[in-house]
């Protein structure tokens, strides 16, 4: 049924996500790579890894650009070729894809892909402004639009067209906080009641505080190799069997439809086809819940349910830890947190843990096929990857 492996994941690592006072992003990255190296003792990083591909969104946060070589250096991987990818919140989803390109090109045997963002030391208005840079400047930012408000525009459209409710959106927050409470790496490890989520303060109507993902510090990474080399290093690799990516207009307003992300739909189609699997085959998924409405739209774009039925899907419990397709077992961007550049590979890290039975209290029993859906900005970039237990 499944397609052949494109590449294999040997290991994965994640820093503790949260409000990390007194450290720089590069220092968080050291936490992530240390964990990845410890998980794969047969790997000799200095000898084996020859390229480092890093997702990092914003120079503004730490007043630091040129982060590719900086992070390669801090990871002890000089003089590896270092490449930085920037695609807003999908910066490291793209880094992962470039890692696949690097291996498939034949130039490299083993690469490290990852991402990092340090955000919480800046004020909320500053972070709001920096994140908004991933939207259209002259027609969106200039007219006062922010990221929450762009997703609010999608939420209003979805509510109007399909009858999706604020309560259904809040249910996404409740589910993801439940999962995040079980994840020792999550930023906010706390259950949230439906009532609390619904009554939280307004950010951009109809989105309230608990509809928004967190401003978080964190780093993540994966070690990738060619499938034929994987067993030399580990008995439990995870194969990537499908990879898709597509682009859309930078301005949300230029799209035909505000209730779906076309780029995500196309990326999913490409990944499913490559992997030879259907939405029904997915055992566990990480979806880009930058806002609760985004997870509801993701259910539809990924084919987990029909267009317009995403609200019903969260209501029915299909995507809880015990449901048919558990989504965001890590807690998602909502509770694990959303250090924007680190998110894509952090999602892949959670799928790696699930498919190697290392997800502890949030383990989905016998999960064999996983999916990660990473969206940049309001959907101008989307990547979808499909994983299979090795």
């Amino acid at each position, binding site marked *: 049924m499944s397609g052949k492996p494109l590449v294999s994941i040997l290991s994965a690592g994640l820093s503790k996500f949260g409000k990390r006072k007194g450290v720089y992003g590069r220092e968080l990255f050291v936490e992530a790579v240390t964990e990845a190296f410890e998980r794969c003792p047969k790997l000799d990083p200095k000898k084996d890894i020859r390229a480092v591909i890093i997702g990092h969104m914003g120079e503004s946060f730490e007043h630091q650009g040129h982060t590719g070589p900086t992070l390669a250096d801090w990871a002890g991987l000089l003089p590896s070729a270092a490449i930085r990818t920037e695609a807003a919140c999908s910066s490291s989803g793209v880094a992962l894809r470039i890692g696949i390109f690097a291996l498939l090109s034949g130039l490299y045997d083993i690469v490290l892909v990852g991402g990092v963002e340090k955000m919480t030391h800046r004020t*909320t*208005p*500053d972070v*709001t*402004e920096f994140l*908004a840079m991933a939207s259209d400047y*002259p*027609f*969106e*930012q*200039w*007219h*006062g*639009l*922010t990221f*929450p*408000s762009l997703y*609010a*525009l*999608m*939420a*209003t*459209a979805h509510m*109007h067209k399909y009858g999706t409710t604020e309560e259904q959106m809040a249910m996404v927050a409740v589910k993801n906080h439940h999962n995040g409470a079980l994840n020792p790496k999550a930023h906010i490890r706390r259950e949230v009641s439906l009532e609390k989520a619904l009554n939280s*303060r*307004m*950010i*951009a*109507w*109809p*989105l309230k505080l608990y509809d928004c993902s967190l401003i978080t510090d964190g780093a993540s990474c994966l070690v990738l190799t060619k499938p034929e080399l994987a067993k030399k290093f580990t008995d439990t690799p995870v194969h990537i069997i499908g990879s898709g990516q597509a682009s859309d207009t930078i*301005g*949300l*307003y*230029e799209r035909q439809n*505000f209730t779906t992300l076309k780029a995500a739909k196309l990326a999913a189609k490409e990944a499913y086809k490559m992997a030879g699997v259907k939405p029904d085959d997915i055992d566990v998924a990480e979806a880009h819940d930058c806002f609760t409405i985004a997870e509801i739209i993701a259910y539809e774009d990924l084919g987990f349910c029909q267009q317009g039925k995403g609200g019903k899907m969260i209501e029915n419990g299909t995507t809880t830890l015990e449901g048919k397709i558990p989504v965001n077992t890590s807690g998602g961007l909502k509770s694990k947190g959303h250090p924007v550049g680190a998110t894509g590979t952090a999602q892949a890290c959670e799928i790696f843990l699930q498919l190697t039975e290392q997800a502890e209290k949030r383990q989905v029993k016998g999960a064999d096929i996983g999916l990660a859906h990473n969206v940049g900005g309001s959907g101008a970039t989307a990547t979808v990857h499909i994983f299979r237990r090795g």
Partner: protein
Amino acid sequence: MAEASLPFTIENFYKLVAEGRLMAAKCRKCGKLFVPPRPMCTDCYSKDLEWTQLKGEGELVTYTVIHVSPKQFESMVPYAVGIVKLTEGPKLPGMICDIEPDKISVGMKLKVDFNTTLPSEWPRWPRYYFKPFDVTS
């Protein structure tokens, strides 16, 4: 400003906004309308374009009311921003003014108006915005 000789740039779009005109670039080859204007038709690759005056009327497709904003807009919160489908077809985002946020609804008819006060810093563009039809100002 005689627009016939103006290049099809975002800056010129806003210069026309400063004169109270909402203008699109129209591809002479395939007829596609671009708001904002583009130097090339991305559908058919033609650079044979012309400025076209838009009526500045349309229907609200979706909207939000922003309570947390960047610093620049902090004095205005809460403010409403929507996406309007113009009569001519293209969609354009903009603030919705001269109406209480709870009176706004998807599908309502709006018309464009202009705030030609120039900000002191780059990019020094005036803003267009939308308002309901029954408001006179």
